[in-house]
């Protein structure tokens, strides 16, 4: 089985999968029976009974949430395609495009939800837009990587036919980017569903998120886990369906990229500094302009000047800053270890699957399930099992980071050039040698793309957990500020969190540039 086959056919090990599923269900049933007095975990048998008795209710809720998630998925991914096209056709703009995209992606759900609700009023738009916001970035980043994963000779071919940048985009780059696009879409599918569910917290009348809140408050454990199971099943189905489409579309082995394409206009010194200044400027103008255009009240829709005032000029600015940074410090304790653990686990598992392909049928469904169970439901269980200390939150952040990294790394490993692998095989190189010399270098761009896009994802996870479960840190501070109408604090937190996410992203980018200079110079064009 080649690496590409492992990637493309996650569930082909039918027997192993069936065995894993049976073992998993048995374990689940036993655990639920053991914990029966604790009101945290329902057994699969109870879940099945609940679903059978409430099929109508669940079906209607699923239809609503799935519909919103699907529209959001579509809009978010179209936006990603558009942004990626702009960045490639006009390379100078890439720093600005990705910078702005990053800033928007970093906006915390806790804060954007209520603002979208006021903006759009009652109706589905906050749910749809939160789903779109949850996906566009995880598609954009792999896509940008893919659009550059092209051998220089292909461009020479385009030029020799006298065609320009547009043809290169359509005939060469788009084709090369397809595998990366599918990786992004597969990561996006569960994220869209989660985004739509969290969007329902802003005042929706129906849907899976509404029912989840209801079930948890009512101590209705079978209902809670029935909802989680349905959400998980849907996310897995979407993942597998996209994988099936990918298998139909992606038939060729990846190309060999031996020489980097010529650098399209060497980067001027300080270009990055300039990009940051432009991004910051555009973001401030958009922020101010959008709120003014909509005529939103300054009571809750704070402008850049209000935040500057609150953080710097106001008499209580020092106290505001102290509160904010104390909360951030609390959050960092969970965030950094969770993020790193998630990266290591994701890359490690991907490598393990390549070395022992037989495990794929066993591990893949579990990995997808783990990521797809809504964090809203798992938080109390993890907290019960691991205590209310740091470990529970760290594990939840790691779970959120783990899956995108795992999928990206698997796809990255699958990008190992076919001819090079043939050469290695003809010299009787073992699987470990092939992995170290070809697989891991091929995985590097995808791994770093995952590491970058996981900075905001990890912050999203930690703030949601703090908000819904632990009541600590910056996530809790933002929720509290919103309920107490302390919108100066809320917007200040949004600004600081977004800025720190962007900084973290930049830091990963620096490490990435050093590594890729050696292994994948075409990515640095």
């Amino acid at each position: 089985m080649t690496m590409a086959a492992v990637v493309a056919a996650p569930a082909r090990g039918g027997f192993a999968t069936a065995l894993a599923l049976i073992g998993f269900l048995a374990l689940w049933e036993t655990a639920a029976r053991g914990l029966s007095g604790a009101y945290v975990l329902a057994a699969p048998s109870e879940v099945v009974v609940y679903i059978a008795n409430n099929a109508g209710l669940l079906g209607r809720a699923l239809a609503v949430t799935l519909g919103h998630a699907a529209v959001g998925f579509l809009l978010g991914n179209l936006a990603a395609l558009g942004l990626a096209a702009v960045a490639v056709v006009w390379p100078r703009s890439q720093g600005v495009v990705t910078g702005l995209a990053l800033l928007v992606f970093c906006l915390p759900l806790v804060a954007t939800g209520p603002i979208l609700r006021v903006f759009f009023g009652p109706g589905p738009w906050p749910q749809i837009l939160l789903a779109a916001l949850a996906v566009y970035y995880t598609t954009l980043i792999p896509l940008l990587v893919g659009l550059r994963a092209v051998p220089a000779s292909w461009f020479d071919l385009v030029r020799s036919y006298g065609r320009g940048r547009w043809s290169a985009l359509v005939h060469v780059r788009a084709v090369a980017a397809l595998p990366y696009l599918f990786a992004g879409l597969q990561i996006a599918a569960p994220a869209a569903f989660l985004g739509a569910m969290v969007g329902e917290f802003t005042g929706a009348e129906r849907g899976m998120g509404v029912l989840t809140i209801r079930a948890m408050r009512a101590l209705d454990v079978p209902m809670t886990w029935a909802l989680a199971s349905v959400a998980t099943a849907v996310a897995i189905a979407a993942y597998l369906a996209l994988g099936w489409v990918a298998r139909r579309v992606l038939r060729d082995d990846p190309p060999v990229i031996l020489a980097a394409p010529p650098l399209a206009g060497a980067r001027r010194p300080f270009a990055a500094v300039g990009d940051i200044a432009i991004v910051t400027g555009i973001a401030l103008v958009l922020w101010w302009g959008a709120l003014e255009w909509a005529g939103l009240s300054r009571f809750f829709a704070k402008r850049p000047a209000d935040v500057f005032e609150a953080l710097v000029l106001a008499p209580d600015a020092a106290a505001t800053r102290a509160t904010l940074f104390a909360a951030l410090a609390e959050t960092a304790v969970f965030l950094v270890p969770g993020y790193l653990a998630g990266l290591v686990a994701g890359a490690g598992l991907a490598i393990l699957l390549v070395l022992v392909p037989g495990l794929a049928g066993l591990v893949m469904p579990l990995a997808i399930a783990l990521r797809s169970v809504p964090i809203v439901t798992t938080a109390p269980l993890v907290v019960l099992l691991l205590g209310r200390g740091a470990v529970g939150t760290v594990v939840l952040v790691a779970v959120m980071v783990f899956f995108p990294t795992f999928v990206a790394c698997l796809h990255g490993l699958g990008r190992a050039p076919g001819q090079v692998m043939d050469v290695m095989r003809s010299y009787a190189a073992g699987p470990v040698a092939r992995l170290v010399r070809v697989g891991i270098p091929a995985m590097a761009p995808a791994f770093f793309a995952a590491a970058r896009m996981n900075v905001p994802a990890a912050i999203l996870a930690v703030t949601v957990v703090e908000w819904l479960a632990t009541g600590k840190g910056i996530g809790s501070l933002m929720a509290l500020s919103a309920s107490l109408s302390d919108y100066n604090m809320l917007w200040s937190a949004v600004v600081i969190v977004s800025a720190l996410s962007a900084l973290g992203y930049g830091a990963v980018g620096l490490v990435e540039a050093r590594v890729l200079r050696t292994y994948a110079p075409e990515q640095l064009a």
Partner: protein
Amino acid sequence: MTSTFSRRRLLATGAAGLGAASLGLGPRRAQAQTAVALQLSWLHSVQFGGSYIAQDRGFWREAGLEVALLSGGPNAPVEPPVVSGTALIGISAADYTAAAVAQGAPFKILGVAMQKNPFVVASLPVNPVNTPADLVGKRIGMALANMPVLQALCTLNGVDVAAIEVIPTQYSAQPLLAGEVDCLLCWETDLPVAMAMQGVDSVTMLLADHGYALHSQTYIATDDSIANHRADLVALMAGEVRGWDAYRADTDAAADLTVRMFPDAGLDLPTQKLQATRQVPLMFSDLTDANGFGWWSDETVAANIETLALLGRPVTPDLWDRSILEEVHGA
């Protein structure tokens, strides 16, 4: 701000007009229905049963008002839609309203649905909390955000708050039943009801019975609405009063209606019936019997101001404006 207000109002009116036309309600338009919205503070449930009755029995429609009941949720603050004019009235609580006013929101409290604050300390009969003094040495599960509430209760009753172990938990009865905590800070009408429906008896100590005087489920509107949309406010509040009086007369019917109106909300009829009866003693009192639903007196406002001061939210009696309610009750 004013210009947006009218723009939104215009849009809302237009949309409601379209809706009415498509429902074949054309002739009724002779009565010139005004479209307004009431922003609820939580997901649809019998907590707002009186409003559903007003809607269902046409109390508002008779007065020329087409009222949209906007659902709340865990991430749906009430104040922004009211400030922006999306909702004419919002359902808040005195402490949240005081906080919003301190941040510059032009709100007044027009009516008080919950005369007694619904906060309780819930515990299990084997290890009960019957008085604030019983809290000493106990582990209490609550959101850290509610720390000022616990502090105020302790100050009012001379209990050392440092002697209570606070454990931050999600809002659920699960930590109590799992033995992670000895008691919970929650509402009388939600987690204890959930436990009862699971067959678990609980002991609840109502904070309002121990000096914690704080109006809850209060109706708020902006100064601008009070000045310029008085008739709509009076009509909306009049419907609320009639709705809640009907609710009190038959809480089971209110629960039935709630479940019928929101079939997708996952509501359970027995739970809704129990919740409906449990909130009656919080909403109706000698004061409301004498003066009508939603009423308050100078004394209850003074007690609220004292509690708010303990919560670090100094306010004046100007926060309350009884003029709309006086028109409704013809006082």
